[in-house]
């Protein structure tokens, strides 16, 4: 499958994300924030970083980048979209995902190998994992606290939209230890930790992130 990775001004992990896409067995297509079309890709990844310098709010300005109009349309039509870290923030600002991400409750940037439980393996990005599989991948953020009003939170929990949950410690004050969520349809997934940094033994904490990039093929073949 062709997977587009959007580079915004200030994206940091776009190259790693493209590499992870290739290692996962898919074709990586570089997309630019000012692009007016998605170059025929089958799925899109919004990578981590500090797009537009995180000015105003993280993801607030990126949401209105020309390419995002196409991403929002395509997501509405069912295309798989994965937002990692800053990409998660952009998806929330775009209202493709409920809730928002705010500054870590302890006010410090956090960088650690984080244990997660993949609770929803019914999305095109998590199908390669077993339900409730525990994985350890790197987490690095300053504004990763997931918040939503009580009603929204109850709905996310009730509908099984929590994709991944922090185990051992809650690293940023996220409500209900939420590390990642999906939209109601399940095609749009946002995740604060970085699976693209855990796809090779040589670098990173192991291969636990690879499933996010091999799932697309499994889903397509299923």
């Amino acid at each position, binding site marked *: 499958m062709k997977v587009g990775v959007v580079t915004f001004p200030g994206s940091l992990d776009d190259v790693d994300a493209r590499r992870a896409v290739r290692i996962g067995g898919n074709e990586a297509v570089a997309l630019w924030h000012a692009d007016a079309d998605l170059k025929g890709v089958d799925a899109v990844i919004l990578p981590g970083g500090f797009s537009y310098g995180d000015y105003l709010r993280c993801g*607030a300005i990126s949401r209105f980048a020309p390419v995002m109009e196409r991403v929002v349309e395509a997501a509405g039509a069912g295309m798989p979209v994965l937002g990692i870290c800053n990409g998660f923030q952009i998806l929330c600002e775009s209202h493709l995902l*409920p809730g*928002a991400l*705010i500054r870590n409750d*302890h*006010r410090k940037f956090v960088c650690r190998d984080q244990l997660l439980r993949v609770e929803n393996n019914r999305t095109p990005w998590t199908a390669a994992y077993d339900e409730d599989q525990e994985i350890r991948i790197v987490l690095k953020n300053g504004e990763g*606290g997931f*918040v939503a009003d009580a009603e929204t939170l109850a709905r996310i929990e009730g509908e099984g939209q929590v994709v991944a949950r922090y185990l051992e410690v809650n690293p940023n004050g996220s409500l209900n230890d939420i590390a990642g969520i999906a939209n109601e349809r399940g095609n749009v997934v946002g995740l604060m930790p970085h699976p693209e940094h855990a796809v090779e033994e040589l670098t990173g904490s192991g291969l636990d992130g690879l499933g996010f990039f091999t799932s697309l093929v499994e889903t397509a073949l299923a």
Partner: protein
Amino acid sequence: MPKPEILDPQGKAVQGALPRLGFTGVVDVRQGKRFEIELEGEVTDEVLAQVEKMAATLLANPVIENYTVSLEDGAPARSEQGAAR
């Protein structure tokens, strides 16, 4: 402003700093943003509605923030006057 039920870590940091500087009796601090927007021509209801839309679309995230729009006459802004002297 961040909604009352949303944690405001920046406000908490400021609140923590104030007693260290000898300012006592501060019960809570919330930190928000203020935008000063200069408009051309007369500010009609229509123009004001546009500004409301700016606030709801870009300036604030209604999921976590409340906002108010208020109209102030005249320029320059106070902060600029302060800086000039």
